[in-house]
C-alpha cells in the first residue's frame, strides 16, 4: 500500500528542501514537545554519569570526582542487595504468571455474552478499579486487612494482621493488582475479538460447534498473537516493579518480601539525598531491564514478525 502510494506520487515528488519548507508549520507544532523531551528526558540521560562520580551539587556534574564503579560495588555488597533483587524479580514474575491469564479468560467469557445490556454492565464494572488511585486502593487494602474489624478478618472470623506477615505480602500485592487491572486488561483483547469475522461463528454453529468449541476454535486462535505479544513484552519489563504500591504497603515487618529496588532508589535518592548512589542503583535496574527487553524483542521479532523497539 505504502509502496504504491509512493509510486503514484513519484513523478511530482518535490525536492527535500522544498518539502521541508512546505511543512514548516508541522515542525513548529513539534517544537515544544521536542524541547520538553530533550530537557526532561535526554538531559537526565546525560546526568546518569553521576552514578560514576561523587556528585556534589556545589561542584556540578563535571566538577565532581570520578569514582568509577564504587557505588555499584557498594550496592552489591549492601546486606539487603540480594534480597532486593530477588524480591523485585519474584514480585513481577509472580504478578505476570497470575495476572496474565486472567484478562484473557475474562474477555473470552465477556465476548460470548449475548445480552448487550448485561455485557455492558459487566464491562463498566470491571473497568472501574482502574480509575482509582493506587493511594486509595492501598487505603482500601489496609482497611480490609485490618486485624480489628477489617472485612477479610470479619469474613474468616480471625484477627490476623496480614500486613505484618512477610509471607502474605506477595499475595496481597498480586491479588489487589489483579482486582485493579484485570478488567482494564480485557480491553485490548475485546477489541481484537470484536474484529473476528462473524461468518466464522456462523459456520461453526452450522457445523454444530458448542459455545465452548467456538471459543476454543475461533476465539482463542484469534487472541493468541496478541496474548503472546503481551506476554513477551511484559517479560521484558521484569525488573520494573512500581514504586508506589510497594511503598504504601510496606511495613517494617514484611520487608523480607517487600523490600524492592524501586523503593530503595527513592529512599536513598530523595529521602537521604545520596544522589550518586541512588543513580547507580537505578542504572543497574535499567540496564538489566534493557538486556531483558533486547532478548525478548529478538525472540518476538522472530516469532511474530512484530517488534516494538
Amino acid at each position, binding site marked *: 500500500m505504502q509502496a504504491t*502510494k509512493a509510486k503514484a*506520487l513519484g513523478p511530482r515528488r518535490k525536492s527535500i528542501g522544498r518539502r521541508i519548507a*512546505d*511543512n514548516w*508549520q*508541522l515542525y513548529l*507544532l*513539534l517544537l515544544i*514537545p*521536542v524541547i*520538553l*523531551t530533550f*530537557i*526532561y*528526558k535526554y*538531559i*537526565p540521560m*546525560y*546526568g*546518569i554519569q*553521576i552514578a560514576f562520580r561523587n556528585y556534589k551539587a556545589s561542584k556540578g556534574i563535571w566538577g565532581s570526582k570520578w569514582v568509577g564503579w564504587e557505588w555499584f560495588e557498594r550496592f552489591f555488597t549492601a546486606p539487603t542487595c540480594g534480597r532486593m533483587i530477588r524480591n523485585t524479580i519474584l514480585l513481577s514474575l509472580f504478578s505476570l504468571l497470575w495476572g496474565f491469564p486472567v484478562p484473557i479468560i475474562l474477555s473470552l*467469557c465477556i465476548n460470548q*455474552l449475548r445480552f448487550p445490556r448485561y455485557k455492558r*454492565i*459487566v*464491562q*463498566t*464494572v470491571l*473497568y*472501574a*478499579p*482502574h*480509575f*482509582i*488511585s493506587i*493511594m*486509595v486502593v492501598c*487505603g*482500601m487494602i489496609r*482497611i*480490609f486487612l*485490618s486485624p480489628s*474489624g477489617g472485612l477479610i478478618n470479619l469474613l474468616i472470623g480471625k484477627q490476623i494482621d496480614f500486613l505484618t506477615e512477610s509471607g502474605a505480602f506477595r499475595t496481597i500485592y498480586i491479588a489487589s493488582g489483579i*482486582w485493579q487491572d484485570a478488567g482494564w486488561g480485557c*480491553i*485490548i483483547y475485546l*477489541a481484537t475479538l*470484536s*474484529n473476528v469475522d462473524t461468518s466464522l461463528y456462523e459456520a461453526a454453529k452450522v457445523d454444530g*460447534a*458448542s*459455545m*465452548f*468449541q467456538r471459543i476454543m476454535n475461533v476465539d482463542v486462535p484469534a487472541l493468541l498473537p496478541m496474548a503472546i505479544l503481551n506476554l513477551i513484552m511484559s517479560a521484558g519489563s521484569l525488573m520494573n516493579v512500581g514504586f*508506589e504500591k510497594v511503598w504504601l504497603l510496606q511495613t517494617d515487618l514484611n520487608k523480607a518480601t517487600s523490600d524492592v529496588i524501586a523503593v530503595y532508589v527513592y529512599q536513598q*535518592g530523595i529521602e537521604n539525598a545520596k*544522589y550518586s548512589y541512588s*543513580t547507580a542503583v537505578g542504572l543497574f535496574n*535499567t540496564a538489566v531491564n534493557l538486556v531483558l527487553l533486547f532478548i525478548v524483542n529478538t525472540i518476538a521479532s522472530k516469532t511474530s514478525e512484530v517488534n516494538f*523497539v
Partner: protein
Amino acid sequence: MAKNRNSTGLSEKTSDLILILITGFVLLLVAYPLYYVLVASFSNPYDVYAGKTFLLPSGFTLDGYKAVLADPNIPTGYLNSIKYTIIGTVFSVTMLYISAYPLAQRDLPGRKFFSVFFIITMYFGGGLVPTYLVVKQTGLINNMWALFLPGGVGVGNMIIVRNYFQNSIPHELIEASEIDGCSKLRTFLRIVIPLSMPIMAVMVVFCMVAYWNDWFTALIYLTGAEKAPLPLVLRNVLIKSSVSAAQASTISGGYAEMNKVTEMIKFSSIVVAAAPMLIVYPFVQKYFEKGFMAGAVKG
C-alpha cells in the same frame, strides 16, 4: 442430531447460563469491595466493626463526611487536584496532538527521526535522581508545572493518537483541504481535530485519570503541604492512620475512640477521592475499544 445439542452435550442455553454465572461472580468480586466501602462510609463505625454492614448501612450517619470536610487540608487538596487535573489534561492532550499529527504525515521529512527520538524515552530514561536534578535546575521544585512539564509528553498515548490519525482520518479529506488552499495548520485545526473527537475523548479521560490519581510526582517535587493534591493529603489518613485535631473534634466520644473514628474517616475519604473518576469514565467507555483498536494497529 437433536435440536440444540452438540458433541459436548451442552445446549446453548446452558452455555449462556454458565457464562452469566462466571461473569456474575467476577462482577461481584470486583464491585463488592467498592460497595462495601460506600456502605461503611455511611454507617456507625461500631457496626462496621461488628460486621453488621455487609449489605446495608447500619446506624446511618454522615459523621465520616463531616470529619473529612473538617480537616482544612482535604478541601485544599481537593481544589489542588481539580486545578492540576484541568491544567494538566489540557496541557497533555495539547502536547499529544501537536506531536502526533506531524508524526502521522508519511511524507514529512525527518518523521522517522522524530519518532525514534520520542520512542527511545519509553525504554530508556535518566532515572529518578538525574530527572529530579534537572527539574530542580529548571526551578520547578514546589512549582505546579513540575507535575506537567517533565512527564507531559506521553509517548504511549502519542503513538495511539498518531495511528488513529493515520487510520481513521481519510487522507483524501486532508488533500482536498490543502488543494482548497488551507495551510497545514488550518487543516489540522479545522478538519483533523473535529474528526478526531472519539480518540480525543479517550485521551482526555486517560489524562484526567492520570492527573487526578497521581501523587508520586507531587511527593517528589511539591514540597509545600499547601500544594499537595488530594491523594497525597489522604496518605496521612489512609496509610499513616493519623487524623488531624480538627477532625477529631467533630466526633463526640473523645480520644478513646480515636481508632474507630480514624477507620470511619478512611471510608468516607476513599469515597470522596474515588467518586469523581468513577462517575466520569462510563460516559466515554464506548470509545475505549474503538480508540484502542484504531490506535493499536500500525498504519
